[in-house]
């Protein structure tokens, strides 16, 4: 009851804020509008998230409770305060700063309404028919792009075979001017089933800094109140209807379509999204031929349709994907929709020509799948397995057979040291490697020394939260990989303890001297970055675009100014929690260097 009252008061505060005009987006409806209708019939139930089931990325380290997604569960601990607090759920990135322009072209045919970059799935104790969802955003709000509900009960004994996801709310990513906390309580659609599993999809690309979520409240009624007309926008767009209806009238003329050149129709059809392509294929024989043309399926992104993709859709797509080169199946197939065997037979049929394969958060993957990929996709150059945290360690051994790999993402996976060492030994063409938050790798120094010996053309390396990289490892890395342009050493805790002598760390200076092509450098929470390091970076890295030195006490405003003067291409500079750099300095420098986005986070 108390929490109900509490939330009501939050809602009231929010309503007042709405009225005072601080939120002017039409999408934000106050919960109170929906309230009176239902309360008359049945008491509503408010629940905080019980558990976080799945997510695509987070800022914190595995096994910690600071800045990790698991903080989204439970009652709020920060709200109504605003600021950058450890207690909240924080995604790994924000803005466009981490977008990889040269490594990852975006897939064509991605529908414009698909904005999601990250997601978070939370379970609640009891299944209800949702009447309102409130997300407590305590820092840089505005990232939520979509909220979905699932008919699947994660706490039930017997699982239904038919799992439905329905969109409760969808919107455009917004840019909210203020970083202050707010209650996000959009007007949601009613669904025809009770749910205790919600999914939040976010897009932080317009935000100035990390968005932080404190808690999620699901309000709903236990029993179906009235016959709700379900305004379902998402049709179940499984591309699976092979149309043999039209096969009888073979000789029918196609009118003007016959006069159009084949390539022209192909060009027109190429602008359609995948479900539209499948629907068009059912209209007539001619268009079916066009829509089934393998050339339409050179690249295929199924990520926007993660909720409806299943084994059957893969079977149907199989015949059209003869020359498939780029496949994005990220987020798809969970909760049994796609099975390992279904995936394997698809890859066996269509994988030979694959160049790029994105499989982040695909929990159906197992060792056999990776084995099949390694055997079939001989020309694979890009492989993304980010957040496949349930994939067993031995599965990664197979990746070593993909000798032509140029980009490999293993963020938040359980890869072990032996596997990564054999990958590095055989995949010498690697350009981009992400080993962020790989907790099973014991000694990053060894990994990095093999890396510098074998993969000398490495352009970008992400070692976010690698715990064991030492200064010796860093020295070895830069001696071999001299063409590095992007280096993420954020939260590498062993780099800033132990061997550092007075006056800062010689290894950073050495690194700066060697890596003259460096464009992005993240030294997040390396507590001993000092003025001398910055001076070396300023002198030797003129191409620098991003620099993150969050949380050092040793950097002075003067050194920062010199850096800004000598790096004309600098666009992002994060000096949050640098105790010598106060807000005034940041404001001064921001006016002097308007092209640079200088970040200074706060906790109050």
């Amino acid at each position, binding site marked *: 009851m108390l929490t109900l009252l509490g939330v009501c008061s939050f809602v009231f505060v929010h309503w007042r804020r709405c009225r005072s005009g601080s939120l002017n987006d039409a999408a934000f409806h106050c919960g109170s509008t929906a309230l009176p209708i239902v309360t008359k019939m049945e008491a509503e139930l408010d629940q905080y998230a019980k558990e976080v089931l799945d997510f695509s990325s987070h800022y914190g380290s595995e096994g*910690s*409770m600071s800045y990790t997604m698991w903080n989204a569960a439970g009652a709020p601990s920060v709200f109504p305060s605003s600021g*950058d607090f450890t207690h909240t759920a924080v995604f790994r990135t924000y803005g466009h700063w981490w977008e990889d322009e040269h490594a990852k072209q975006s897939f064509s045919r991605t529908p414009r309404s698909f904005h999601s970059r990250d997601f978070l799935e939370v379970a609640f104790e009891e299944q209800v028919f949702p009447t309102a969802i409130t997300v407590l955003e305590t820092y840089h709000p505005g990232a939520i792009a979509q909220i979905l509900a699932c008919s699947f009960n994660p706490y039930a004994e017997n699982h239904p075979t038919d799992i439905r996801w329905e969109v409760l709310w969808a919107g455009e990513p917004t840019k909210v001017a203020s970083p202050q906390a707010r209650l996000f309580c959009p007007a949601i659609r009613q669904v025809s089933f009770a749910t205790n599993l919600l999914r939040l999809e976010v897009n932080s690309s317009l935000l100035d800094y990390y968005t932080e979520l404190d808690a999620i409240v699901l309000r709903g009624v236990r029993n179906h109140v009235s016959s709700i007309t379900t305004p379902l926008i998402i049709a179940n767009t499984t591309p699976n209807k092979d149309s043999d209806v039209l096969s009888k009238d073979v000789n029918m003329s196609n009118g003007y379509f016959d006069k159009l050149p084949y390539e022209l129709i192909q060009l027109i059809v190429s602008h359609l999204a995948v479900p539209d392509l499948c629907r068009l294929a059912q209209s007539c024989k001619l268009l079916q031929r066009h829509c089934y043309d393998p050339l339409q399926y050179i690249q295929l992104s199924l990520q926007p349709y993660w909720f409806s993709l299943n084994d059957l859709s893969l079977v149907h797509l199989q015949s059209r994907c003869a020359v498939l080169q780029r496949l994005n199946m990220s987020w798809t197939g969970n909760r049994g929709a796609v099975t390992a065997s279904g995936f394997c037979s698809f890859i066996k049929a269509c994988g030979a020509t694959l160049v790029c394969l994105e499989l982040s958060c695909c929990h159906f993957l197992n060792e056999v799948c990776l084995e099949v990929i390694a055997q079939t996709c001989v020309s694979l150059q890009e492989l993304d397995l980010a957040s496949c945290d349930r994939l067993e360690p031995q599965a990664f051994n197979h990746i070593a057979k993909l000798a032509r790999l140029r980009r490999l993402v293993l963020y938040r996976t359980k890869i072990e040291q032996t596997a990564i060492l054999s990958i590095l030994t055989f995949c010498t063409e690697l350009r981009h490697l992400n080993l962020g938050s790989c907790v099973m790798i014991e000694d990053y120094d060894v990994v990095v020394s093999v890396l510098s010996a074998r993969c000398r053309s490495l352009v970008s390396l992400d070692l976010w939260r690698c715990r064991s990289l030492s200064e010796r490892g860093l020295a070895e890395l830069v001696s071999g990989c001299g063409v590095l342009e992007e280096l993420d050493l954020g939260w590498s805790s062993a780099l*800033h*303890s132990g061997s550092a002598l007075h006056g800062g760390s010689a290894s950073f200076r050495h690194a700066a001297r060697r890596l003259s092509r460096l464009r992005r450098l993240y030294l997040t929470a390396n507590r*001993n970055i000092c003025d001398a390091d910055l001076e070396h970076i300023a002198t030797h890295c003129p191409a620098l675009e991003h620099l993150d030195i969050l949380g*050092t006490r*040793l950097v002075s405003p003067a050194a920062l100014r010199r850096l800004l003067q000598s790096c004309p291409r600098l666009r992002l500079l994060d000096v949050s929690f640098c105790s010598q750099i106060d807000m005034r300095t940041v404001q001064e420098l921001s006016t002097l260097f308007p092209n640079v986005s200088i970040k200074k986070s706060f906790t109050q």
Partner: protein
Amino acid sequence: MLSVLSYGRIVARAVLGGLSQTDGRDYKLVTASCGFGKDFRKGILKKGMCYGDDACFIARHRSADVLGVADGVGGWRDYGVDPSQFSETLMRTCERLVKEGRFTPSSPVGILTSAYYELLQNKVPLLGSSTACIVVLDRRSHQIHACNLGDSGFLVVRGGEVIHRSDEQQHYFNTPFQLSIAPPGAEGSVLSDSPEMADKSSFDVQLGDIILTATDGLFDNMPDYMILQELKKLKNTNYDSVQQTARSIAEQAHELAYDPNYMSPFAQFACDNGLNVRGGKPDDITVLLSIVAEYTD
């Protein structure tokens, strides 16, 4: 309906407890805190459970009652670091760990270790050091599990006698073992003990046992017999009387700390170490007084 059920459960539990003489009831700790900062103004300005550079927490979870004290090492003030930030963050983190159930009652060192690890995970570059003492009551097994790093500590009193006390850990005189985060480059020159170094102990408790957990500000100024005298006044297990006793102990220790002629345990110890010291030891004082009572929903 629900209340009938819950009463039924209590009755059933009481009957069962009466039948079997082996105690099937769950215990809990009734805990009150009181303290004084060395600097009065600071103590008042601070919000929450913080007395000067000392900090403490009282938290409960399904299976256990947990409490702890931490004494921020004052020497950090010379480096321009607020010593209370470290101890307070450490205690707040412990509290959060307990509330979220990320601990096992039998391993208070685990709480300390994870809390220390979380401090390093903070974006804010924390500096400082602190002693720490954590006491856990396992409700079901009626056992106290405690760990103590440094010169804070606890006493267990039963029937007016001290039946258990924690060991003090010092590197040398007035320099206790401590958890610390050193500034970069000074890692070697700052005392830093791992949470694993903490003195661990486990023992059974009975209903009515009193546990007094405090920072050195108390033990340096008040000898055991005076503490026991105060504890005698504690007759029942309700929160108010516990709070009252805690307050009177803290107040008395605070008075003694500023008495220049009083031969405090600290002065005694200093004399033993060849230093000619008299009077109390002005210090932050934190007292957590708990009494073991029967657990009721």
